[in-house]
């Protein structure tokens, strides 16, 4: 096995492990949040939670796959570690970005579902008048 192949394999292993770990964390901790968003409808919360995790996996694995190619020769262990640091660092940044995006979506869903319809008139009245209800 050449050093390039082993670099690729280590990159894939680290990236896949990280993605699975983040996805599981999101799945586990996002559930409580979604149950609250959907006012205790656990079936719907689980369904949305699952769909979100699927999307998360697709985007991350897609990125990991596309970013695999090094584009330059790796001849020593030193170069291999340097290449890995760049690649894994990018994956971590993408995961971080995705994670905050997920949190943003969750909090927005929650705020929306808890927004009360506002029943206060926008302006105070100018004056009052008697109303003849029969007329």
């Amino acid at each position, binding site marked *: 096995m050449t050093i390039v192949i082993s670099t690729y394999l280590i990159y894939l292993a680290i990236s896949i492990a990280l993605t699975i770990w983040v996805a599981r964390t999101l799945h586990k901790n996002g559930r409580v949040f979604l149950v609250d968003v959907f006012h205790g409808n656990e079936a719907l919360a689980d369904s949305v939670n699952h769909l979100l995790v699927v999307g998360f996996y697709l985007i991350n694995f897609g990125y990991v796959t596309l970013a695999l190619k090094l584009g330059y020769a790796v001849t020593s262990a030193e170069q291999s570690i340097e290449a890995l640091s760049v690649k894994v660092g990018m994956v971590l940044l993408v995961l971080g970005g995705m994670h905050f995006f997920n949190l943003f979506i969750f909090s927005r869903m929650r705020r929306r579902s808890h927004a009360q*319809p*506002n029943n206060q*008139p*926008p*302006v105070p*009245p*100018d*004056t*009052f*008048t*008697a*109303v*003849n209800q029969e*007329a």
Partner: protein
Amino acid sequence: MQALTVLYDPECGLCRRAHEWLSEQSKIIELKFMPCASDEARKRYPQLDHDLTKQDLTVVDDLGRVYFGPKGWLMVLWSLARYRDWSYRLAAPELLPTTKRVVSMISQNRYQISRAAGLNR
């Protein structure tokens, strides 16, 4: 608040067009329309200054709260399901002066606008 009565100017084409548009919108609060200074309006609101209602749109709720001009328009927007958010936006302190100026301008020139837009009888 269950219903708003809109005292509108039956002589103005723009107002009639607005009336048509409003009747198609889905509402949170019922809107009733009454020609301003009509016998009907005088009977229902015996204490109201009906000459004032001829100058500008007037909205009265079922509890007798009166909203003149731009405030009346904001209340009408507030009664519509799709535009309730807009009524708050336009009534925010930063926008209210502009809202009042624009609505008053349209209101004062309603006959000219109706004529220009070909909305007269």
